[in-house]
């Protein structure tokens, strides 16, 4: 294994983030803070508790997931799309690195950023609402697993995209709607039965449900199923990436 290469890519990508620290961290933190102000404090005080959890606290896991998904995808897709766009990817492609090492470097850096961001939002939430974390280890594991999975997904998008619009389109058109409909702001059990069933086809439901369980011990679906579904998505992404490198798709003419 070319450890030097993995470290070089990882540190290079992290350095890029430190340089753009304000944009990278400030804007997601500010926008989530707005959600907390509006839904947590202002509206939340008039809402009923859900499953014995105050509304302000209830939305925290969902909001963190919302940000985590978007940031993981955009960080990772941008990280690999830019070198393709400018042409500097030639160097990575001509270096003695395996696909796995390239993915470790790029996706590792993107996922690290997302995890830092998730923890930062969690800390910010403290300023607005009281919450508890029943299963901190599970909480962290979910955070890392989701960050890695969606950074992988972002990496795929960054290789598939052949323009800046395409880089935006998947997060905007698919991920954000799925997150909003995936129970960020409500419990699935509040929906009519038909919609409860339909919702189960939304993969984000499992992420949010599992993550919320690690906070409050209540979940829409069993934690085991949540973990399993997340791992399935992780494996699908890995398989896609393996295919990309084997065929040279969009990387090697």
């Amino acid at each position, binding site marked *: 294994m070319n450890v030097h290469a993995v470290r*070089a890519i990882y540190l290079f990508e992290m350095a890029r983030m430190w340089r753009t620290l304000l944009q990278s961290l400030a804007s997601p933190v500010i926008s989530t803070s707005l959600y907390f102000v509006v839904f947590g404090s202002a509206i939340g005080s008039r809402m009923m508790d859900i499953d014995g959890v105050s509304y302000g606290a209830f939305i925290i896991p969902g909001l963190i997931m919302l940000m985590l998904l978007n940031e993981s995808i955009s960080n990772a897709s941008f990280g690999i799309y830019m070198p393709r766009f400018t042409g500097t990817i030639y160097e990575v492609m001509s270096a003695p690195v395996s696909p796995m090492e390239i993915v470790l470097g790029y996706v590792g850096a993107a996922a690290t950023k997302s995890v830092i961001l998730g923890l930062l939002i969690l800390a910010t939430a403290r300023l607005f609402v009281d919450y508890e974390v029943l299963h901190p280890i599970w909480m962290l594991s979910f955070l890392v697993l989701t960050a890695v999975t969606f950074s992988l997904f972002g990496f795929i998008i960054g290789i598939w995209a052949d323009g800046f619009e395409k880089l935006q389109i998947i997060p905007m058109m698919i991920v954000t709607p799925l997150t909003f409909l995936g129970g960020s702001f409500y419990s699935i059990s509040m929906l009519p039965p038909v919609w409860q069933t339909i919702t189960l086809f939304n993969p984000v439901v499992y992420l949010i449900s599992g993550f919320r369980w690690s906070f409050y011990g209540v979940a829409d679906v069993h934690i085991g199923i949540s973990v399993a579904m997340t791992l399935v998505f992780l494996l699908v992404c890995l398989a896609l990436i393996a295919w990309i490198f084997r065929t040279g798709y969009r990387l090697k003419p």
Partner: protein
Amino acid sequence: MTAIISVTGLSKTYASGFRALDGVDLAIRQGEIFALLGPNGAGKTTLISIVCGLVKASAGSVAVAGHDIVRDYRAARSLIGLVPQELTSDMFESVWATVSLSRGLFGKPKNPAHIESVLRELSLWDKRHEKIMALSGGMKRRVLIAKALAHEPRILFLDEPTAGVDVSLRRDMWAMVRRLRDSGVTIILTTHYIEEAEEMADRIGVINNGKIILVDDTHQLMSKLGSRQLSVHLSTPMSSLPPSLADMSLTLGDEGHTLIYSFDSQGEHTGVPELLRALEREGIEFRDLHSSQSSLEDIFVDLVTPTREVAQ
């Protein structure tokens, strides 16, 4: 001499259906400077890209120091440094960061002293903290060279390194290429400046329409194909050659106004004094003498032009 790169039956058909390489066989010798010449679109960059792992071959194989570039890509690639034709760089990075990245990518532990010496040699040391976007085009090209040298490669590909580079930098660059060659680095370069190839390269390969049409020692190529001509502009035109001159390699041109004598430029015995004496003996008067040597440029144009016309 042992071949450090051997290319066998290499072909490339792009997804568009265009055949950019067509059965290329080529052996690059350890420690030489090899110049690859060919018109635009001949397939030079494609060939280099396949060896470096940027483009997949459609058929054939390449071995670098005995390592197959697909099966044993790590060993093969870690020997190679590539300076691409296009100026591509991480605009927002500093020179130091981007050159250090290159070393890491090729699996070498950090070595600030080596990077410093590379940057100094390329006169980039003072610019090491500058962002690349703040550099001029020639400096950006030097950054690309520094990146290629950061991991101490044994083989260096320079794809049109002197395109858009001023005279003094070009001289520095060639001095550096010679130093690298002296330290045992094998160098493969492409260029459209044929004088450069003539001056720099130990051997020259000509590629056209995806086929290698000639590979030879630069000196041998010059002497084999580089004949010299002496044009004698006659005072009075001649309808045919006098019999006494018939066995010299003479032709009449310009409707009998010019006598053209061809001879081997590298030969010991040019035959020019004999010709002049013969002319005097025959009482042939001339106004002017003009001698010219076919350069590599002429040779190149000769080689490439007919095939081009056929293709069109």
